Each structure stands twice: as C-alpha cells, then as structure tokens.
C-alpha cells in the first residue's frame, strides 16, 4: 500500500542501505529495521523526547523525522554514543545519582544532555533545566538528572572524570 524509497545513510558509523516505506519515521526505522531499540517511542507527537537521536550532529525527534529524509545523512543513537564512549562520564553520573528510574526516558535524555555538554559547557542549573525541558521524565522529577548533568559538566571542566 505504502510507496517505498531507498535510503542510504550512516548509522553509528556503519553504512546502511534499506528500502523503507515513504511514511516510516526515523525512530521506527532504527528500532524495527536496524534493531536499535535503545531509542524509545513515548508519544509519537514530538513532545516527550524519548526518541531523541542525532542527525548530522544535531539532535532531532525520531518520531517527527521520516526515514526518507535521512538519505545521505549520518545518524547516531544511544547505542552509537555508548560505543564511542563519548558520554561515558555522563552515563556514570546518571548511574551514581539514580537519574534513571524506569529508564524509558533515559536514552533520549542522555542524547539531549550530550548535546548540551558540547554546545554549552558553561551551562548553569537554570540552563540545564531549560535545555532539558523538551525531554519528559515521569519518574525522577528531574532533580537527579540535572544533578548528573551538572556533575558531568564540572567533571569535564576539571578535565577529568566525574568520579
């Protein structure tokens, strides 16, 4: 029924070529075709941020982006940034501060926080709160998440790890 299109892109450093339905969104593409289930589907409305992934270096909502749009692009997911170790300190800080309870929002939250860490290394708590306001978490009340991001920022400033 659906029209299809062929896309080739780089996902977590690997070249991917797939035939996809024209209406398939990016997060479903990642989850269903590539088994990258770390990106979650929370609302499919572009509000909750559980589906946050990186597209050509910038975070996007996987549920508001079509797979067809990523032809020729580079995509990174939670699996990818975990493998490269670029957010190891952030992940460690999340773990230490119990910043994930059910964990469903966490991969998206980590992806968003990772962007903040690079675009605004001097962020204070107010800016962290503001930046993460596009990612819902129903469990933690955010305090632990903000603490974890703050710890990571401080750790990076000191040029060392957070521990």
């Amino acid at each position: 029924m659906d029209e299809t299109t062929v896309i080739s892109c780089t996902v977590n450093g690997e070249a991917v070529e797939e035939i996809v339905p024209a209406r398939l969104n990016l997060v479903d593409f990642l989850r269903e075709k590539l088994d990258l289930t770390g990106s979650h589907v929370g609302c499919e409305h572009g509000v909750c941020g559980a589906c946050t992934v990186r597209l050509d270096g910038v975070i996007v909502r996987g549920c508001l982006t079509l797979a067809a749009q990523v032809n020729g692009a580079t995509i990174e997911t939670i699996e990818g940034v975990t493998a490269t170790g670029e957010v190891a300190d952030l992940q460690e800080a999340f773990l230490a501060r119990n910043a994930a309870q059910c964990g469903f929002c966490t991969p998206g939250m980590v992806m968003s926080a990772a962007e903040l860490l690079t675009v605004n290394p001097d962020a204070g708590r107010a800016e962290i709160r503001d930046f993460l306001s596009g990612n819902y978490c129903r469990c933690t009340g955010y305090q632990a998440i903000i603490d974890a991001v703050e710890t990571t920022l401080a750790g990076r400033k000191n040029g060392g790890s957070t521990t």
Partner: protein
Amino acid sequence: MSNQHMGKAVPHDSAAKHVTGQAIYIDDIVLPAGHLHGYVSMSPKAHAQITSMDLSAVRTSPGVAAVISATDVPGAIDIGPVLPGDPVLADGWVEYAGQALFAVAAGTESEARAAAKRADITYDDLDAILDIETARAQGSYIVEPYAITVGDAQAALAKSANQLSGKLAIGGQDHFYLEGQVAVAMPGEDGDMLIYSSTQHPSELQHLVAKVLGKSSKDVTVEVRRMGGAFGGKETQAAPVACQAALLATATGRVVKVRLDRDDDMMATGKRHPFHVNWRVGFDADGVLDAAAFDYLADCGYSPDLSLAILDRALFHADNGYFLKNALIRGFACKTNKVSMTAFRGFGGPQGMLGIEAVIDDIARHLGIDRLDVTKRNLYGRDGTRDATPYGQRVEDNILPELIDQLEASSDYRQRRTEITAFNASHSHLKRGLALTPLKFGISFTATFLNQAGALVHVYNDGSIQLNHGGTEMGQGLNTKVAQVVADEFGVPLDAIKITATHTGKVPNTSATAASSGTDLNGMAARDAAQTIKARLAAFAAEQLGADGENLSYADGNVLIGEKTLTFAGFVRQAYMHRISLSASGFYATPKITYDPATRQGRPFFYYAYGAAVSEVVVDALTGEHRVLRADILHDAGRSLNPALDLGQIEGGYIQGLGWLTTEELWWDGEGNLKTHAPSTYKIPAAGDLPADFRVAFFQGENREDNIGRSKAVGEPPLMLASSAFFAIRDAVASVAGNRLNPSLDTPATPEKVLMAIEDIKQRRDTEQ
C-alpha cells in the same frame, strides 16, 4: 546476617542498561517471523446501544489475519478485576467513549488501523452521565453511599463556636507512564499462552487471560521484566490489551503484539479519580477542630474497577495527620459514562487529604492565624490521647510534631513568611505564597487478604543465587532492594545475585505491586526463603561439620562455622554433595492488620509513613501564571533501605503531585470525549517546572514496627507533599485581597483557574467594602 548492603545507596540494578539503551521493554522484544500487530477499535460514543456491527470490510482489508468482537470470545467477556463490569470487547452497548469495540490483527500496525476504520457500526444513543453532580442527583452509584463515623459530628457542629463550610473540586490525572500499555501473546502447545506484559499485577492478568480464553490459570504464564513507568496505571489497566492480544493470538495461532499509542492509551485507560469534597466544620477560637463532616464524591467512571478500595482509602485519609473527635465522613462512588478511573499513586489518599488541608487553610484565614499554627494545633497527640483515627486505629508513632518543627526551622518558615508579607505589600502584580503541609499515609492494602507475598530463592552449587519474588519492577528499584536483603542474609556481594523477571510460573498468586508495599512484602518473603535455606544449612553444618548450628555467620562471601571459615560457594557445594536442598520458597503475610468492612473500624494499616513539605510560589496576578520558587521536604522513610532510590521516589513523587495539582488537566467535552489525550494538550511537568531551589532530606528515625530493615514504604506518600504548592498558590491568591477571604480555587490550579480565582476574590473584596 551482615548489613553490608541494606541501608546503602546501591545503584538500581538496571541502571547501566538504562543509560545505554540496553534495557529491554516489551516493545523491544524481538518477535518471531510472522508475528502480527493488534489494533483495538474504540467507541466514539459515551453511552449507546450498538444496533449493528458490520466488520466484513475490516476482514477483507489488506494484511488482516483476524477480526474479533465479543461474540468471538471463547471464555468470559467480563474482565472486571474485583467486581464485574469491564467487558474485554463491547458486548451490545458501550458505556464510555474510548471503550474497546473489536480487535484486528494484521501484518503491520498501520494495516490493522486502516482496516479498523472500515467497520460499519450503528448506535442508538442513550443518556450519558458525564459529571459527579449529575450522578449524585440521579443516584448513579457503583455502590450505595457509606460513611465512617466517630463521635457525633452533627451535635458537635451545632455547638461549635465557629463554623465554616466549603467545597473543593479535585481533578483527575493521567498516569503518563512514558511506556504506554503493551503486551505480547505467544500461543503454545495445547492452547497454552505465554504473555509478556507491562503489568504491575501478573497474577491477576494471568487469571483474566485464562478467563477470556476459557482456560484456567495453569494454562497461562505471564512474565514481566520491567515497566517503563506504571504509577498504578498498570495495576488493572494492563489486562485489557493483554487479553485482546491473547484472543487474537488464539484466533490466528500466531504471536500478536498490542501496543496502544499515546492518544489511544489516554482515551482508553483509567486515570486518577476526580473528586468533589464538600465539608462543614466546627472549631474553637484557636482553630482546633470540634467536628467535621465531609462528603467525598468520587468520579468512578463506568465500572467498579478498584474504585471501592480507592474511595475507602480517600475516607481513611480524610483526617490526614489531624485528630477528629467528632467526624462524619461519607463516600459516594459516582458512576459516570467515562473511562473507569483506577489506581494512581496514593490510591485516593491524596484526594482524601486535600479536603482537610483545605479546611485547615480556610480556618487559618478565617481566624487570621498562620496556617502552620492551625496545622500544629490539630495534629494527633503523642501520649495515648487524641490518637484515635475515625476508623479506630491508634496513631502509635506520631512523629509529625517533631518532623514539622524540624522542617519549620530548616526551611526558615517564619522568617520567609515575614519577607513574603513584605514582598506582597510592595508588589501589586507579583504575589508570593507559602505553605507547609504535613502528610500521614497508611501503609498496607486496605483489602487485608492482599497483604501477602511469595518469593523463590535458588542457591546454585557454585554459590551464585537466583532471586525471584512476586513484585514487579517499574523503576522504583524494588528488585535492587530485595536483592540487598538477600545479599545480606547470605553475606554475599550483590553481583552474586541475579534477579530474574517476575514470572507467574515461579511465584504464584501474587498481589499487585502497589500500595507502596512492594519492598515491605517481597523483601520479607525473600528473606523468609533465604532463612529457610539457611536453616537447612545450619542443620547440615551441625550434623556434618560438628558446628553449633546457631553460630553460623555469613559475611563477605564467607561463612564462619565455629572457628572455621569457608567460602560461601565452598560451603553450599558441600551441602549440595550431602544432598541438602538449596532452593526454597518464602512467604510473608503482614501481621497485626484487621479491618471489619461492616463496621468500618479496625486497624487497616500496619504503620503510617509521614512527611511534610514547605513550598513557596510566585503568582502573576495579571495572568494567573505561577511557579514554585523553592520547596523543602522532610520525609520519613524509616531506616531507609536505599537512600538513593528513596530520594528518587521523594523527588519524583513531589513533581508528579505538582503536575496533578497545577498543570495536568483532563478535559472532557459535552459528549464525553476526552479532549486532552496527548502531551500537546495535557501538560506533565518538564525540567523547567522543577523548583529552582529544591531541598529534600530524610527524617532520622526508624519504623517502630518490624518491617524489613525497619524501613518504611516510600512509593506513594511523597506525591502528597505537593499539596504544599497548591496551598502556597492559594496563599498568594488570598494576598490579593488582604489574606482575609478564602479563595475559591479548584485543582488543577492552572493559570486560567488561578486568574479566575483572583478575579473572584477581588470582586468579593470590593463588594464587601
């Protein structure tokens, strides 16, 4: 037993998987080729007779493998969890907009959805009851109204020096667990069914799936590793999709997944009960209550579900932390044509408490006394006087006076009150408000029989341990806490223990992980299992190793037997070689609790958990917008089993409560359609809504009851701490008119409602003058 893990801030056992995206939720399970996706079509009508249902075009739609309606259900249609009233698929009529009509299984979700649209259904509309007042006027109740009484409220009211009455409308709340309802049904031999479900209540779900399939519980297995949030919303509400998936799997012989998308989830599944509270109280010149009469009217929606237990809990919390000498507390379980309201963190308790907190607030303003002083004067006593609740349970460990004193000091309450008064006097548009609210929350299921739990512990002969219990993991860290208990029993490191998915084949007949009781019940059951194994090991050591059985001590991965130290692994290996069973089930039934539903008297709760919060808000009197500037919380977790996890419950509970009371608005149109069924219109708190200054501390103490590790349950109570924010907003609104008049402000206190309350109070001030 060693105390190496209990009391420590051990990370959540799944934390490393959560932060890397490796934790597997139901929707992540790789399904076999040929699996199908189910879609459930929902009623557009709030109340109607179904006059015809033609599904032939649905059946012939591309990709469709099966279409089922009520007539295709092989077993029972009703899946009401306690009382009947919830058809798995509509059976001749519909009672709320969003009710399941029929289910389709197709190769893809979009094929199933597209097919469902082709149904041809006709209805005869019936009158729909869409609000509490209409239900009351028409006598539309789930059960007849009932009351808890103590003393003689009417007589005492008549004699009281001062009287006040008021009412409060309390909004409901969608759970908005980030992971929506989802289940996978895998058919097996002999019509057996394996269900992967995101449920807080695997045993009930097992039973209900068996029931709709016309089978028995032995034929159905339910497994749940983790949920992506639940908050009560997956206690009974996980069952319909699981039953529908099982029916489709039976019809097709294939694996079927049913996952509700956010809009469907919000329209189809139950929520926190909206309530109206009407009250009339009498009090003396100091604000001390002589008498109180409360009417609690709950919007239960169309079916009983858990509403009776929820209304019970609301009535049990009408006192919050306050002594009521004379009280008449009436409950009305209103039946309306809305989705059936269900369990949600606090289970009616928060609505119960909000009523009396409104009373305290109004008395304070009426007498011109600070609300904190009225609060303190009405607290339960500590010395065997003024300690009986309206339902007859004694408040034996009332720590509230001490706890409130500590919080009053640590939050600089009096100082800030002075500053806020000055601020409000010098600012015409921005108004600040401050409030301290206490909480006392009863711990135990109010249906006494539910207070039981089982566990299964296997010690393998290499010294590693597999741990199972009947509780479910929804993010609260239950598995971690129970593992801490077992690790300390055996004196082994946590990584010697594997916590496996909750599985009805391992621990049967479990209660829901609910009522904050997960750790209390399952921790004790797991300890019981471990102690059974240890008793066998002690007997073995006495017999074979000549040890004094009483004197085994387990610590640091070793067992000290008299003078000898063996590794735990070496010791259990020897026991195994001597044919000692290293596997045991454990059981726990909460002691002391008794409650007589006929007289509505007894001891429904094993113990109480306490807490208090101070919130400071600023309100823009021109727009009604507001924010919490600072919140200070002092919470009683007893001797916390895991301060990191408990802190998370407190922080998360407060923010979730803040959402309930200030931003999350359920809005039904005149036809009974929920219009706020997506995050675009339904606002849960975001990171920016967190108080910029948020200070959370534990009250230092321990559970006087012999609860696991002398801890206290901490899942639900913190939600109620957010009432301090609501009453701070009320304080700010009252300041617009000189803090003398009581604002009429309902919840959620959205900017719109706050603005209306401000306009209203200004008008009343002006007519007074």
